[in-house]
């Protein structure tokens, strides 16, 4: 397990945004479509939680900084990976969106349970729910690209 989780770079990986420029354009368009009608802070929480589950270092580095810029508290960022245990720190909308994001991200382990879907459907309008799903789908796609090409955050 330690070995498979260790991101040791011994093979050079492609610069996919150079070799597949259409992919980059399409991904940017997807991100823009998903960003509409979603609260920016909530959007960052969704993006960070999916990036934690998918182990995307570059994405975590980027979106924790973006979240801080949007005023998301350090406490929320610190506790996000354990949001279910965090009492009232996260709002019901945030919790519903995070539960749905986790289910969407962990698709290999199961389906999207009715109770998770229902919880989100109760706190969001149909349009908002669609956009929450869109954001979760989109960050999952970015996570897959950046983990596959092993994009790394710069040291600050």
């Amino acid at each position, binding site marked *: 397990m330690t070995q*498979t*989780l*260790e*991101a*040791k*770079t*011994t*093979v050079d*990986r*492609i610069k*996919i945004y150079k*070799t*597949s420029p*259409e*992919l980059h*354009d*399409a991904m940017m*368009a*997807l991100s*823009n*479509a*998903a960003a*509409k009608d979603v609260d920016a802070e909530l959007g960052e929480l969704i993006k960070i939680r999916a990036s934690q*589950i*998918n*182990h995307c270092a570059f994405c975590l580095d980027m979106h924790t900084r973006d979240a801080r810029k949007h005023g998301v508290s350090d406490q929320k960022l610190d506790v996000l990976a354990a949001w279910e245990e965090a009492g009232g720190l996260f709002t019901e909308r945030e919790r519903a969106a995070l539960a*749905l994001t986790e*289910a*969407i*991200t*962990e*698709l*290999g*382990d*199961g*389906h*999207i349970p*009715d109770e998770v*879907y*229902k919880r989100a*459907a109760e706190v969001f309008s*149909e*349009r908002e*729910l*669609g*956009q929450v*799903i*869109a954001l*979760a*789908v*989109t960050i*999952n*796609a970015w*996570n*897959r*690209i950046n*983990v*596959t*090409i*092993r994009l790394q955050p710069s040291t600050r």
Partner: protein
Amino acid sequence: MTTVEKIRRINMNRVSPELYEAMVALSNAAAKDIDPDLAELIKIRASQMNHCAFCLDMHTADARKRGISEQKLTLLAAWEEAGDIFSEQEQAALALTEEMTDLTHRHVSDAVYARAAAAFSERELGQVIAMALAINAWNRIGVTTRLSPPHR
């Protein structure tokens, strides 16, 4: 793992039409410079792992239209055990697709990446990756909104 239809789920095309358009554009971008038969195998394998019934129904039908053999479709979920039924390019792409799809459990290993890099040009490899992540995105939409395949 049992799914009982109790709650009606949203229609993404209707509530988020921009997403749907962007997804179609993503699929089109990913479909360039990749062998269409290989693309169907990638799409079916990811859809098996992500349990997207609608996607499996659609892409197995597409694969048959393209002339992919019943044997390949039957053995796809166990391609690693299928000897040389699958070409080295297909095996390399399927191994990469599986690791990209299973991201929650591991990274994309050097061994699997190197195998794909040896079998494909850089451009082709980029498009294989693009195809794997595009179907992963469709799978997530299909499963979340519980799209069901039509009865035939």
